[in-house]
């Protein structure tokens, strides 16, 4: 017997985690890109 509650939890949590983690990574790439630019300008 399939535990559909767990299946739905895996789907919802899984897909949102994939998008959130890659979204945060995008933000981090932009952030460290900007930080590097200002650091290089300061040098």
């Amino acid at each position: 017997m399939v535990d559909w509650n767990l299946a739905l939890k895996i789907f919802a949590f899984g897909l949102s985690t994939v998008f959130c983690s890659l979204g945060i990574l995008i933000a981090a790439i932009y952030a460290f890109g900007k930080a590097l630019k200002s650091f290089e300008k300061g040098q």
Partner: protein
Amino acid sequence: MLDLILTTGVIHLTIGNLVMWLIAFLFIYLAIVKNYEPLLLVPIGFGILVVNLPLTFLMEEGQGLLWRFYHFGLEWEIIPPLIFLGLGALTDFGPMIANPKTLILGAGAQFGVYVSFFGALFLGFNIPEACSIGIIGGADGPTTIYTTVHLAPHLLGATAVAAYSYMSLVPIIQPPIMRLLTTESERKIKMRQLRPVSKREKILFPLVTVLVICLIVPASAPLMAMFMLGNLFKECGVVKRLSDAAANELMNIVTILLGISVGATMSAENFLKPQVILVFIMGLVAFAFSTAAGIMLAKFMNLFIKEKINPLIGSAGVSAVPMAARVSQIVGAKADPKNFLLMHAMGPNVAGVIGTVVAAGVFLALAG
């Protein structure tokens, strides 16, 4: 005399063994003659052949040689992370850092993983088995193997072979879906040349990524940490020997062990089941949906962004590096021979690897 005959394998052969020999010969033929994933299909095919020789006891628990490869290599989680170390040392994240929004396409292409997950549940598989089947849609062999060994080791042969087979069939599976979901004018969209990425950015990327991903999905750490370590070796420039070893010698050694261990799990009694055919069907469904989702997400993003992206690069989010990116380039070049999409497609392509590892981490955390 009879006792002597009984010690030979010949009279213990079963029809199942013979069928598996045919499958082994088919794999070796496809690898050598058709050049389909030869680095894996040759050792897998040979592993299938020898594990289906009666009385060799190569997979005898605690004794057999191939059992030791399988147990210490795969069950102890050694081989897939080492493969990721080598992949990291071979991967250039530059195109993705230059255009970070393509990371979202790598996430979108994981949609097929969940379609196939539910498909497998409806076909009667349990949750851990469905996770192992769904992850085929990520088109990432080592991640599929890593997930299956944890969640449904009895399906390892089927999921691994399905993942690698579909990866080699990317140029056949993806183009019809890409053409179906895009218009001629969309396929002709030209993308601005990517900006150059500095060495500092490339060095920082693996450090930032390992922090972000492993904090959010700790279960993905074994694969993600090794992936990013390999990439740091490559980009930092001060450990060229380690980078070369990870990308070449080590990668080759673990590929041999991986291939023969996977093949060794495919004994007749394990593999000749109706379940295996369902695994292959659901794997194909996962692949097709992942391709379609990547393209549709790119089209959706185009509704909101100024600089349009060519939706063909969305299909590269299924990983299968670099084959899927090459397919984007080929299909794009057919619409406009002056359109160069390869480097743009490498962004979602490598992002797809990260996305698949995250999806696998969630499966392991919740279904393991």
